[in-house]
């Protein structure tokens, strides 16, 4: 069912334990070689390799930071004019390029329901430029623009809800700790027409101050603490939770990462409350 061949070479430029790199590998296995990738400014603009090399075996176009969705829309239109209706055009964008600077172009493409797949690999900060906060950075996080004595005071933006509100045909969350779930969702999305949004939780050992050997474990804990639930939304309305979380306390997740080392018990408690509340909301929608 999935490409056995590796469509990503080993010679990429990522840090050890990079979740965004694992995500790409799985995604390409599900997408197959009839894929064109659009990569705006993000870690992946570097990971893909400097000229004249490429770590990817599908065509790639690098583009400006806020244009992941709009460049993809243009490519799709161009391919259709050339009579190619099969190739998947996939934007591969960081959380900064999605939640922040690119949200306008993404919203435009989603509202037009352009026939593109949009991947947001979410490492919860601007990693390429050295770990600055984004609106995907969670409450209480240390980044280089939210120092430990004044960590981020706002919760993470709920991007899935924003995309669901566009009533696009398909939106899903996934992560590297659950590769089968990820590949199933990407394959399913690939067969759908219209704008499809895949939100991939992608640990970043460098930016999260965590050992690189723990990336997958941290991703698994994110799911089992309900911090990053795995679910799908079809047509913006039909919610389906795919993995039952073990309901572990958030502390188990937080304490593995240096970016949360400064958190007080009160702040951990606040995080737990927010996570529980968000989870209840999600469950309600899934039961609807």
């Amino acid at each position, binding site marked *: 069912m999935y490409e056995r061949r590796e469509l990503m070479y080993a010679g990429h430029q990522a840090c050890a334990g990079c979740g965004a790199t694992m995500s790409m590998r799985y995604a390409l296995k599900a997408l197959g070689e009839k894929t064109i990738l659009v990569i705006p400014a993000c870690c992946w*603009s570097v990971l893909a*390799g400097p000229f004249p090399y490429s770590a990817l075996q*599908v*065509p790639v176009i690098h583009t400006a930071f806020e244009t992941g969705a709009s460049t993809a*829309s243009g490519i799709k239109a*161009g391919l259709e*004019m050339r009579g190619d209706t099969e190739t998947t055009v996939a934007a591969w964008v960081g959380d900064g390029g999605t939640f922040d600077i690119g949200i306008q172009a993404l919203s435009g493409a989603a509202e037009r329901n*352009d026939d593109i797949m949009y991947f947001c690999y979410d490492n919860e900060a601007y990693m390429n430029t050295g770990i600055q906060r984004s609106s995907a950075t969670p409450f209480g996080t240390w980044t280089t623009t939210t120092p430990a004595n004044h960590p981020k005071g706002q919760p993470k933006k709920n991007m899935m809800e924003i995309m669901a509100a566009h009533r696009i045909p398909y939106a899903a969350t996934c992560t590297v700790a659950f590769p089968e779930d990820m590949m199933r969702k990407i394959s399913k999305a690939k067969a759908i027409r219209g704008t499809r949004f895949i939100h991939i939780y992608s640990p970043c050992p460098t930016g999260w101050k965590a050992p690189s050997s723990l990336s997958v474990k941290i991703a698994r804990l994110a799911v089992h603490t309900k911090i990053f639930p795995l679910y799908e939304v079809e047509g913006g309305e039909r919610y389906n939770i795919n993995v039952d979380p073990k309901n572990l306390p958030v502390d188990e997740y937080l304490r593995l990462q240096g970016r949360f080392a400064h958190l007080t018990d009160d702040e951990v408690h606040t995080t737990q409350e927010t996570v529980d509340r968000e989870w209840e909301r999600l469950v309600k929608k899934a039961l609807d």
Partner: protein
Amino acid sequence: MKKIMVGNHAVSWGVMLSRAEVISAYPITPQTTIVEELSVLCADGRLKAKFIPVESEHSAMACCVGAAAAGVRTFTATSGQGLALMHEMLHWASGARLPIVMATVNRALGSPWNIWGEQTDSLSQRDTGWLQLYCESNQEVLDTVIQAFKIAEEISLPVMLNLDAFFLSHTAEPVEIPEQSLVDDFLPPYQPEFRLDPKNPHSFGCMTPPEYYMEFRYKIQQSMLQGKAVAQQVDDAFGRVFGRKYGLIEPYRCEGADLILITSGAIASTARVVVDNLREKGRKVGMVKVRLFRPFPKDELLEILRQVEKVAVVDRNVSFGVGGIFAHEMRAALCNEKVRPAIFSYIAGLGGRDVTPPVLNDVIYQTYKRQEPEAQSVWVGMRS
């Protein structure tokens, strides 16, 4: 066939005749009716193209970049603020060597708000690697769209054609519509040398370190310079097929002139009348319309201007701290010439103010009167 049409529709019809395949644009006065007409032409099938109604000009140019990289003929149009918003993507388009064509309806930039004619919008983009052409009439607008695609595809660089807000964009003139079959022969379907193709995967625009980047830039410069000869050839070929040609510059009654007025766009039409009147009175005044601004047609200008004593450049634009931009470019282009005219610089007509014959007469009068050019551009047609 002749039709009465406004400049904006001349753009749209030029795009239709050129068989653009992907169009992406966002409305802004005074460009809006270009886009409206194009969406109608796409909707009723007269133009078989995809029209992407994006949420901003930045996305419009990004869509054009994507579509052109996929290997199709691509067009957009904008004005003033929209062009300013696109700026980042203008560099991207030329850097990626994509032959996108854009019409800019020149509009003054805010603050304060102003929707009327001024070229500071497009001239602020002069370092983005786009060729720039400035049009004087609606016929020239339509013809230049077709020429622009041909030039762009020949040298793999984007081309911007400019027309004055309202004076052209919203003014109706008779326009000869070229035969589609002749346009098809003149401008065959776009055959990209490189495109995004899963059967032949390549990476475009990846991180390019100092050891390589500079050569990419050098090649753009070479192509840009080549663009001058190509624009000339394309105009000549266009003339042979359609019976109209415009040149890179157009000298008007310059024979034996002791003073030449230099301008661009719709002001050139007024300048013709002024020159005619002064010639009748025995004044040896001529005019040169600059049609191609990037690459700058230095040699062509020099040939006409070398023997003239005084040149008066009328700029409907300003680079604050320098002055009129065409004048500045002229001075830079001629500075190493042993024999060269004195260049007098005038700023007129900003924010859509009319540049009337009395204003141009004043420019000529002042130029005759002064021995030497003022250090700064002289502002004319000011409120007293």
